[in-house]
């Protein structure tokens, strides 16, 4: 279980130490005025991709101040993606017309909130913390596009493409909250798509009051290949020669093997 971030105390000299202690005390005093505590815990924070992997589930839970709204963001690090764009050639036939580059686009982006984010968060805060598709549209750069209209169109196509692969979700129905001893307990369970590639994903919970984010807490979900899957994907990427030879040898062996079996069984004769 992790709590809200605290500054690290560093330094060897005595003066530095006192300054750091004073700063720390000040931060704690200020922080306690904003919120008592916001905690986050992901129950399935290490997802292993083995031979029988077909996606998983991740549940996020914790405590917050009563009366705050919550937003949970699960996202991969910003990356870039090259996608083929379809268009009409000669005004008649649909085909690939070129490639679009999406810069600063996370491969996975889940936003879950207790209410619709437009109702609980100001536009400025959404943009600051990149929460919601409208903020994401300002965050992601698309090239080449000639004007804003074209940009908006391809951004919405990008969202449709990602949602079709279950990699982008925006929902305000998943988080359950209960009040206990003046605290709010929250819990959310979400499907983890098998389409999400191996990597580290940041899970952030934001406590929201008066359309502003007052606190945040973070944890991580690590997705990792193991066993034969790790061995095969590593070999495919790093030792193409051996991988190719084995793939061909297995295929030849299987072809001859089945041929022999059918011969013995009298299939072809």
């Amino acid at each position, binding site marked *: 279980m992790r709590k809200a971030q605290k500054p690290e105390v560093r330094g060897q000299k005595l003066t530095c130490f006192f300054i750091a202690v004073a700063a720390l005390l000040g931060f704690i005093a200020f922080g306690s005025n904003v919120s008592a505590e916001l905690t986050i815990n992901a129950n399935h924070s290490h997802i292993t991709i083995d031979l029988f992997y077909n996606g998983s589930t991740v549940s996020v839970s914790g405590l917050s101040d009563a009366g705050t709204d919550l937003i949970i963001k699960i996202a991969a690090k910003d990356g870039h993606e090259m996608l083929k764009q379809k268009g009409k050639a000669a005004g008649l036939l649909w085909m690939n017309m070129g490639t679009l580059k999406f810069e600063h686009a996370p491969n996975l982006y889940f936003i879950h909130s207790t209410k619709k984010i437009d109702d609980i968060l100001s536009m400025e805060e959404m943009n600051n913390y990149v929460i919601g598709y409208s903020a994401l549209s300002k965050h992601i750069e698309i090239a080449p596009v000639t004007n804003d209209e074209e940009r908006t169109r391809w951004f919405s196509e990008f969202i449709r493409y990602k949602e079709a692969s279950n990699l982008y979700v925006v929902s305000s129905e998943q988080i359950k909250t209960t009040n206990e001893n003046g605290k709010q307990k929250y819990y959310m369970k979400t499907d983890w798509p098998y389409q999400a590639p191996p990597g580290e994903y940041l899970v952030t919970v934001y406590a929201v009051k008066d359309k502003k984010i007052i606190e945040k807490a973070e944890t991580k979900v690590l997705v990792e290949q193991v066993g034969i899957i790790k061995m095969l994907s590593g070999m*495919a*990427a790093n030792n193409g020669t051996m991988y190719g030879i084995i793939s061909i040898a297995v295929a030849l062996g299987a072809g001859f093997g089945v*041929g022999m079996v059918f011969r013995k069984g009298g299939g072809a004769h």
Partner: protein
Amino acid sequence: MYLYLPVALTSINIIIPIGLGLVVGLLSGLFGVGGGFLMTPLLIMLGIPATVAAATDSNQIVAASTSGTYAHWKIGNVDFKMGFHLLIGGFIGGLFGVQAIKILVAMGNADFVIKMTYVLMLGIIGAYMLVESLNSMKKNKVEDAKPEKESGVARLLKFLPLQTHYEKSGVIHSALMPIVLGGFVGVLAAIMGVGGGFLMVPVMVYILRMPMHVVVGTSLFQILFNSIEVTFLQAYTNHNVDFMLAVLLLLGSTIGAQVGAVFGRKLKGEQLKVILAVIVLVVTVKIIFELTMAPSLLLSQAGGH
């Protein structure tokens, strides 16, 4: 039961690729085609990235064509001499085809040319095969084919050097014929990104005048070598072959190819041609639909050509 595919980075119900392999393997054993023109689009529909689908299919074809060639060799339907000559041409043609693709991509209209080549070739070949084989089925019922109607071109071809007797096929051609024709198919196959079995079969039937059953076995023989080459290059250069998916596909396709070879013996050459023609035409219509109907998603993974 679901299995995870380490290169495609996706999970799949194993029944689907095994079943798909079985059907495409059956077509392979029956008609001497690799079935890439069916398998690759179906794999893409299942969520496999396009480049992985094409590369993995070639790995699967190694197994299906081995199984099919073996089955046809046992019943004496493989013309190895003809197969080798076609292979030489196909290899040279493939090199030219890859260069042609580079030029098309640089010109910026590669996709349009590829799609149009595909539709035209499939449409023309399918229609020609259908009409021709239906006609010859009718003629056979009435009377035996006329003994000799040699065209000027055919007489000219007899003056070419390296006249070779292809015993298994029962034909005499200049060795240059299969080399040049194999080269032509190789260029088109490389441009379209397919193995070219559905082009090679009509070339062998109508231009090289080989009997349909020998065509099927010989086509599978040369597809085997092509698919080995493509699988290795894909694994070595693009790292796109998904071993798990290939194993699932070949579980079905190796058996399908054997069953296809057995079925093929029970059908007449003309009947085989009619069925293949219908399949080729159905695929053509499907591609035309895809080209004219608005797709549900306007973005797709980059890769391939």
